[in-house]
């Protein structure tokens, strides 16, 4: 807390003495479901970028969130001690979002501080994109998706001809942020609850301690090669499992975060009017709960996640993104998760009326559990500062599924987004 206050004071001093640019983004959102008001949320994100000369910039942003509904602001246990919110009330939360120095030095660039690291090419699914954790406080019905959480990291990027190198050392064991127990989008599917099938109150859920900043640090390297209309990337990430392994000891569920290694591959190519994307990740030491063990036994398995997708212009001037993602674990023993999850995604967007209106439709469909999520949104841009939106999230399918677990959370959303 003292560190955060000192950094904020430093930001104020810098902001007063150097060329700077400020923005304030935010949104006020309301949602209703069959039980009434499901979400009332105000998010304000002020950001300052300060030019310190020679291309060096300091970037500072806050995330101020207030919520008074069943959706809430999310559990706090996912944050590491050094990334804990500055204000952590039940209804009001203030987080230091990004706080870093970007230092270019010719072909090198250093970025030091709290920052988002976005790897990967497939949209919405974190196949290779496993460095920054994500907010999952509304399941997969968040915007943007993934909604990454900034972490403390030292990053170096280098450009050598057609090769880009990216090295990350992040001594910040912040993990994915889940909804609070009892909140509208707290996970209900057995796979997220050590195989338990909640018919009544859940046992207490706690997080494994993650106070070892160095031992639990995420270390990653990515090499990108660009040739003509093709990008090829290879990455290696060593860090803690950000999803958490839910283990039941008879009294409580503990979310454990063992270290794991992921080797990733990305291929992006422009085929005339279509951009194709392929992404795959192999984790040789993934861990999942064994079925029939009452949630107490964990198996170490090989996990391979692959995704293929394409972007192109569709009929009537639409933008279309279509993807197929498969997540497979090689295990001789039955697990509480399916051996293979297959999810298809389809997104169609259209801007019309001189970009004053935008229509977005998205369909996420699990071919494994035959459940899914349909998202619709109509945006009217009032001017360059305000836009109002109306939409809905329709969850359907089995309650055992990633989407179907929220089948009673189908909701209508509306609100206003703003930027100054």
């Amino acid at each position, binding site marked *: 807390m003292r560190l955060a206050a000192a950094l904020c004071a430093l930001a104020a001093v810098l902001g007063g003495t150097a060329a700077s*640019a400020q*923005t*304030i*983004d935010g949104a006020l959102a309301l949602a209703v479901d069959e039980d009434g008001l499901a979400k009332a949320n105000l998010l304000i994100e002020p950001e300052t*970028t300060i*030019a310190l000369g020679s*291309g060096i*910039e300091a970037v500072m942003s806050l995330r101020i969130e207030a919520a008074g509904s069943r959706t809430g602001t999310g559990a706090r246990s996912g944050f590491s001690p050094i990334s804990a919110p500055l204000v952590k009330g039940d209804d009001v939360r203030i987080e230091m979002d990004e706080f870093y120095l*970007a230092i*270019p030095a*010719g*072909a090198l*660039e250093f970025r030091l501080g709290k920052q*988002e690291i*976005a790897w*990967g090419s497939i949209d919405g699914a974190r196949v290779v994109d496993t460095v920054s954790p994500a907010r999952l406080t509304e399941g997969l019905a968040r915007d*943007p998706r993934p909604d*990454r959480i900034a972490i403390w990291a030292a990053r170096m*990027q280098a*450009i050598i001809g057609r090769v*880009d190198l*990216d090295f990350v050392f992040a001594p910040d064991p912040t993990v994915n942020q889940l909804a609070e127990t009892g909140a509208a989008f707290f996970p209900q599917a057995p796979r997220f609850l050590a195989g338990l099938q909640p018919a009544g109150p859940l046992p207490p859920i706690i997080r494994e301690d993650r106070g070892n900043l160095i031992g639990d640090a995420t270390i990653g390297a990515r090499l*990108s090669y*660009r040739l*003509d*209309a093709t*990008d090829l990337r290879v990455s290696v990430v060593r860090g803690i499992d950000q999803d958490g392994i839910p283990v039941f000891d008879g009294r409580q569920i503990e979310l454990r975060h063992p270290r794991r290694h992921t080797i990733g591959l990305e291929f*992006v190519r*422009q085929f*005339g*009017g*279509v*951009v194709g994307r392929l992404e795959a990740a192999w984790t040789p030491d993934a861990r999942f709960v064994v079925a029939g063990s009452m949630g107490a036994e964990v198996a170490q398995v090989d996990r391979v996640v692959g995704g293929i997708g394409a*972007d*192109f*212009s569709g009929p009537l*001037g639409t*933008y279309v993104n279509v993807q197929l993602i498969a997540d497979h674990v090689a295990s001789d023993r039955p697990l509480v998760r399916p051996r293979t999850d297959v999810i298809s995604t389809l997104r169609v967007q259209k*801007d019309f009326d*001189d*970009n004053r209106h935008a229509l977005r439709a998205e369909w996420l469909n699990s071919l494994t559990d035959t459940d899914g999520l349909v998202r619709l949104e109509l945006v009217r841009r009032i*001017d*360059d*500062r305000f*836009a109002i939106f109306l939409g809905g999230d329709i969850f359907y399918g089995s309650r055992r599924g990633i989407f179907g677990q929220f089948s009673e959370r189908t909701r209508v959303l509306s609100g206003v987004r703003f*930027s*100054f």
Partner: protein
Amino acid sequence: MHRIALIALSAVATASLSLGAAAQGTMTGDAIARNIAERPNADPRKGTITFVMQDKGRSRTRAARMLRTETGATHRLLLAFDTPASIRGTSFLSYDHKAASKVDETWLYLPATSRTRRVPASDRADSFMGTELSYGDVKDSFIFGLADWTFSAGGRADNGRYILKGAAKSARIAREIGYGGFTAEVDPATWFPRSITFTDPAGKRLKTISVRKLEKVGASLTATDFTVTNHVTGRATVVTVSGLAKATGADDALFDPARLDRASGRMP
């Protein structure tokens, strides 16, 4: 001083026009298009580009820092948007390859997703950031893609400019670029189109680009004041470039797609 320079430029242009008319009176459409494509464009230059979108008395403004350069056979354009706040941090990068066999490449960085995406070539016809320009208009730098068009010459206008006509080479290309054809007035002194009227893929008049002012950095010309008028919607976008200057220190790293995420801060 400024007036003297203008008079001198005018005299040079007139002389060039006369010589050009004598020597090149029977130029083919392909020859005119090639001269446009081979116009000097290599000098690294920077400036601030402002788009004022006008519609029924209302206007909205977008402004971006601009960097252009040409290396080998590739023209590269980088735009980093500063205003309005809703799009601050958005960056656009294009590689326009002169070789018809190479596919042009375009990337867009959106702060909301924190990722740089390749933009499909089929999106060339889409509106660029809500303006009346398409992605293709922005990256083409007033050069007609030799792989996209079948050219023909339409003689001379009363002002001495060449009339260049183009027809999209195929229905697919017409759909991709959003245009079925065009008629342009090309200044033979600079090989810069001063007005272009496009038709849509069905042949209906779609929009007109009128160039009012050109500025030179080194040997390279940049249109620093032009208007795009959409005849279907009645809307217009006025584009101006201010502070046009030679971009010293514009190294290759600035035009690397991996560096789009903070492009504005890195620009010289």
